[in-house]
């Protein structure tokens, strides 16, 4: 199953902001450019037209003289840099510059002027924009043409264009950055909520989010914290309930087992049937007692924030000790010599119980213990318990550590009677130490349970 490709929220926001800023700044820049170009061009048109009228007047006056010296007139004209003038009189052309001749004048301008109209037009002269004015001089049967080079204006405009484009680019980049920053800012609480939720999922109920000043984000943080508190309270209540129930069962159980011990001491006073009934009763009371102990154990494991008492524990010593205490018969023990001094930071009682439960499980349901091993793993110590039972069906591998899983699984309830909590307690205790417990098939049949614990101290 493929998830449709979606960009991360922060990337999407940054892109949106960037594109938005680009559009707005491009619009602004181009209108600013167009407006200023139009304004500058008009200014220039007015100025050169005025100049052309003035020059035309000078030319007309000069040509009305007795002996008009047209080339001399051209010299008289107050021409600025880049301004060229042409004079036409009765079909003869005079020019201030060799580069500009009558051929350079477009017909669209020349003809109306010679027909008596004033014309101003933008043309290209020598590859650069230029302004061309044509003013008819009917009183002297001529016309005055003026070409003003406007390369400077073009340069100004191209610089303006470049500046505006750069500004637009910078604005969109800034927009993208703002978008990125805003999305980081916006998603920061989401990220902290996610991180907190993860911590809670692994059972750290001390987690709570720092108060958020912003009203909307504050709402999220507040409701998250409220949810955590409610969850914590509920889990605590459930754990306390199981604990309280088991606790309340302790007193009657004490009476039961004590009274039973009296009966057992006087077994020979009972009839054979009475003695049989007593044995049944004793067995069940013992099982009941174990169940209460296990329930208490597991409800304590559920209690969030239970006091943590860790000390370095020499793991091999612990294994040998548990084996020596229990009645497991002859058990092959493989201890890796490198692990003789290995320690695990933890709680001895919990570790002992976890191992004891695994051994009891192997003995009760696994047809007996084949081998117990302590093996090195990367950064961890593995306790391995092999049994010679039928193994665990693959379907049950994940569920076998669930509470009271036995009833639902393919294993039969043994007459020796475990509580159904033994393996669940193993998992809780191993988890408490930051390790994990797994089961797999042993080469040669049977099940192999492995407790992995993070090692501390010496190799």
């Amino acid at each position, binding site marked *: 199953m493929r998830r449709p490709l979606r960009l991360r929220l922060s990337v999407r926001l940054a892109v949106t902001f960037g594109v938005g800023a680009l559009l707005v700044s491009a619009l602004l820049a181009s209108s600013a450019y167009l407006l200023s170009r139009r304004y500058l061009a008009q200014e220039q048109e007015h100025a050169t037209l005025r100049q052309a009228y003035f020059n035309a007047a000078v030319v007309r006056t000069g040509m009305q003289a007795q002996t008009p010296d047209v080339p001399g007139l051209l010299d008289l004209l107050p021409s600025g840099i880049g301004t060229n003038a042409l004079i036409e009189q009765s079909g003869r052309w005079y020019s201030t510059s060799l580069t500009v001749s009558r051929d350079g004048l477009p017909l669209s301008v020349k003809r109306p002027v010679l027909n008596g109209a004033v014309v101003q037009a933008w043309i290209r002269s020598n590859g650069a924009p230029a302004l061309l004015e044509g003013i008819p001089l009917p009183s002297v049967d001529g016309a005055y043409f003026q070409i003003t080079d406007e390369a400077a204006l073009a340069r100004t405009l191209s610089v303006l264009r470049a500046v505006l484009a750069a500004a637009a680019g910078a604005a969109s980049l800034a927009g993208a950055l703002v978008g990125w920053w805003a999305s980081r800012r916006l998603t920061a609480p989401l990220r902290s909520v996610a991180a907190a939720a993860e911590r809670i999922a692994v059972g750290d109920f001390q987690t709570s989010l720092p108060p958020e000043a912003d009203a909307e984000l504050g709402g999220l943080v507040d409701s998250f914290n409220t949810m955590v508190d409610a969850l914590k309270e509920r889990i605590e209540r459930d754990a306390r309930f199981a*604990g309280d129930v088991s*606790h309340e069962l*302790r*007193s*009657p*159980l*004490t*009476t*039961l*087992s*004590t*009274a039973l*011990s*009296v009966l057992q*001491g*006087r077994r020979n006073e009972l009839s054979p049937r009475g003695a049989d009934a007593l044995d049944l009763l004793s067995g069940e009371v013992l099982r009941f*007692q174990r169940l*209460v102990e296990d329930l*208490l154990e597991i409800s*304590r494991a559920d209690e969030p924030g239970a*006091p943590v*008492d860790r*000390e*370095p524990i020499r793991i091999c010593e612990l294994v040998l*000790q548990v084996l*020596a*205490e229990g009645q497991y018969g002859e058990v092959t023990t493989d201890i890796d010599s490198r692990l003789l001094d290995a*320690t695990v930071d933890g709680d*001895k*009682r919990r570790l002992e119980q976890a191992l004891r439960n695994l051994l009891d499980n192997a003995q009760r349901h696994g047809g007996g213990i084949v081998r117990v091993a302590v093996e090195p793993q990367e950064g961890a110590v593995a306790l391995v318990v092999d049994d010679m039972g039928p193994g665990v069906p693959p379907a049950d591998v994940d569920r076998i550590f669930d509470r009271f899983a036995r009833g639902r699984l393919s294993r039969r309830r043994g007459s020796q009677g475990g509580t159904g909590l033994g393996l669940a307690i193993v998992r809780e205790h191993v988890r408490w130490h930051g390790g994990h417990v797994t089961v797999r098939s042993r080469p040669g049949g049977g099940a192999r349970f492995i407790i992995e614990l993070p090692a501390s101290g010496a190799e």
Partner: protein
Amino acid sequence: MDAVPDSVLVVDDDDRIRASLRLALEDNGYRVIDAADAESALELIARDVPDIVLLDLMLPGIDGFECCRRIRREHDMPILVVSARADSHDVVAGLEAGADDYIRKPFDMPELTARIRALRRRLQPAAVADGTTELQGAGVWVAPERGEVRVDGEPVHLTKTEFRLLLEFMQHPGRVYTREVLLDRVWEYGYFGDPRIVDVHIGRLRAKIEADTANPTRVVTVRGFGYKFDA
């Protein structure tokens, strides 16, 4: 065992538990007296000092902790706390109030009688293997058979368990004891005891024989292993 049976005072507010314990303990050869609350327990002790006290911590009125402290003011007989609550806080608090050991409800009768027997053995004068009558070290003087202790010449009163603990240390100065070994040798439980019992008793012993309990010089901690006596 001699003609006069050991007496056990059972203090528990649950009538049925008292009744069943009476039956069971009497069948095991003990003389049982019982009390439903701390007040009557203290009265009973004032009249007839029992050899061993079996004390429930959850009592109406004066609770088990206070009851334990009051008994300890006058008496050094072993006190076995019966803890109904499972959490370790209560256990440690009970031990700190002066109890010698604790057992959890529900308990097996064989286990209870084993503990009582172990506590009972501490009532007898301590015997030192080679017949030494006095031990001395680090300013501490002990007369095992008379149960006397002096620290820098001043007599100090120890409970039976504290006395056994000190004696064990002084017989082997410099030897490092793990908690398990101490449990085995002083409480005589093998591995079945709770190591916290040792820690609490070490704390109480230090309070009595150390000049500065924060920096003990006689019974010192060997980190990661246990304790030793520096002579």
